[in-house]
């Protein structure tokens, strides 16, 4: 018999020898605990493929997707099209990182442990926060876990979140809140301060989901004055140019780390950034790597403060998280090491410059205007003479991809994200397509 599993090393002779050693004639003799009528069912799955067949099949599926690089692309938000230095995947996808698991045995896992410690150190510097954990699933679950942590710390059950936080993050928070039965109140950012009383935390996003810069300090002060915490949702590139959460009074900083060298991959796997002040470290969810010495006095790294975690504390753990996104953290460390402070700032600045140039050009299209009252960063919301959703679809027909109003009840229009990947010709294509489509719409309206 040839193997049906191409990765099986066992020949028929191997299997025969193994069965003999066990003292049986067939594996079925080991399966007596399984009800007879349920044993070895027909599954109705397709037959196996050779590697070339599976490669061809999946290339055909991949070809039916429109990758970001195949035309003008302005979709962003928590997931951003950023330049990934060539060395990033080469390093992060090395088999010794990729095919290891959680570093339970530190003596033979120093590569993982030190790389994650590097990640914690780099993010701590970038966000100006004391402690960073080794990752959450993504930005949205980091927000939910931050809310849970604030609830544990304060003993309160109400969480107030700004409506200008990414809608995916708010949705996830609301879902998580069903668990312990927390009250989640959504208010405009400008009303956060007035809602601080009795809240475990105020959750603010800066820059917000529409790109606006938000004055976080008074919000943090209001949270603190009311005995609660301030959770800031942030973005890694913005932190290179904007005063970071630690300087603004945030007690917990969270965000989506995908822009740090991780492919967009339709939304995952990504990287949940989670950082906090030192005083809160024992309430943090997730793994944390610490520095120590080995028995000979040599420096090394271990998972530490593990009594917070599910494998020890079980129902009293700070979170149920076990498998996390460690490889994404290692990827982010490699990205930040390669970019350096200069490269990171350069990437961030390019997005800012391109967004502002594009905002000016689009504002001159009749009926279009930047929909933000104040300063913005590298994305902005554009008020348009046609509903944002319609414009988004019309632009997609011209192979120009943008996002619409991002599920905000009171805001329509489109949202334009720029990064260092935004080319001048892409910008030209967007402006002329918006001109054409909105002009056509005005004529249609006028003709009626």
């Amino acid at each position, binding site marked *: 018999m040839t193997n049906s599993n191409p990765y099986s090393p066992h020949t028929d002779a191997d299997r025969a020898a193994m069965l003999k050693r066990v003292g049986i004639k067939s594996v079925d003799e080991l399966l007596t605990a399984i009800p007879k009528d349920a044993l070895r069912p027909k599954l109705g799955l397709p037959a196996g493929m050779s590697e070339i067949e599976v490669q061809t099949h999946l290339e055909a599926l991949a070809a039916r997707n429109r990758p970001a690089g195949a035309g003008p692309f302005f979709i962003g938000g928590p997931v951003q099209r950023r330049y990934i230095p060539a060395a990033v995947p080469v390093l992060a996808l090395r088999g010794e990182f990729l095919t290891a698991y959680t570093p339970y045995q530190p003596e033979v896992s120093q590569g993982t442990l030190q790389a994650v410690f590097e990640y914690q150190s780099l993010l701590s510097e970038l966000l100006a926060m004391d402690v960073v954990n080794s990752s959450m699933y993504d930005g949205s679950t980091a927000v939910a876990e931050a809310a849970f942590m604030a609830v544990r710390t304060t003993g309160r059950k109400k969480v107030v979140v700004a409506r200008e936080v990414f809608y995916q993050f708010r949705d996830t928070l609301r879902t998580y809140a069903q668990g312990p039965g927390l009250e989640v109140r959504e208010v405009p950012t400008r009303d956060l301060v007035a809602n601080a009383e009795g809240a475990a935390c105020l959750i603010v996003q800066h820059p917000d989901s529409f790109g606006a810069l938000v004055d976080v300090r008074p919000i943090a002060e209001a949270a603190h004055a009311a005995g609660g915490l301030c959770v800031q949702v942030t973005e890694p590139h913005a932190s290179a140019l904007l005063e970071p959460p630690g300087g603004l009074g945030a007690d917990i900083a969270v965000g989506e780390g995908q822009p740090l060298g991780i492919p967009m991959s339709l939304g995952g796997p990504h990287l949940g950034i989670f950082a906090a002040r030192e005083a809160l470290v*024992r309430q943090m969810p997730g793994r944390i790597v610490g520095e120590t010495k080995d028995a000979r006095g040599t420096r090394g790294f271990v998972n530490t403060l*593990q*009594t917070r975690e599910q494998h*020890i*504390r079980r129902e*009293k753990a700070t979170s149920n998280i076990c498998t996390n996104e460690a490889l994404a953290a290692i990827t982010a460390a490699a990205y930040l090491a390669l970019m350096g402070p200069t490269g990171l700032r350069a990437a961030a600045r390019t997005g800012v410059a391109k967004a502002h140039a594009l905002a000016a050009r689009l504002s001159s299209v009749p009926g279009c205007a930047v929909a933000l009252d104040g300063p913005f960063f590298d994305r902005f919301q554009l008020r348009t003479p046609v509903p944002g959703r319609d414009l988004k679809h019309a632009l997609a027909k011209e192979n120009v991809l943008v996002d619409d109003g991002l599920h905000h009840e009171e805001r329509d229009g489109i949202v334009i994200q720029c990064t260092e990947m935004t080319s001048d010709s892409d910008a030209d294509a967007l402006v002329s397509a918006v001109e054409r489509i909105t002009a056509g719409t005005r004529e249609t309206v006028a003709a009626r």
Partner: protein
Amino acid sequence: MSTVPNDLRYSKEHEWVRADGDVATIGITHFAQEQLGDVVFVELPEKGSTVRQFSSLGVVESVKAASDLYAPISGEVIERNVKVIEKPELVNSEPYGNGWMIKVRLADKGELNQLLSPTDYRSHIGETAGAGGD
């Protein structure tokens, strides 16, 4: 063998109490620290808070275990041992000395009668140890 000083009273959860007038000092026993292994973290109630007999007052942790501390007697916390928070290893090296946890002003001296005598505690941990510990 575990040390069980004769001048103290004990709880079944392995805390000891040293009463001096209306002030009582509380810590964990030699047996308890042995079971825990190297203590890495101690969490204690704030000064001025009150603790109730047999209810949780804090946490003591080793690398791979966390145990709740239970108040052997009720009262107001008048002092917490800052040294043991800074150097948790004192719980291992001097459980009855510098490894003490908190001092409370006794609310009800009668509660002391509900605690174990040294002899009773010795047989208690004999039983516990015989059952394989926890």
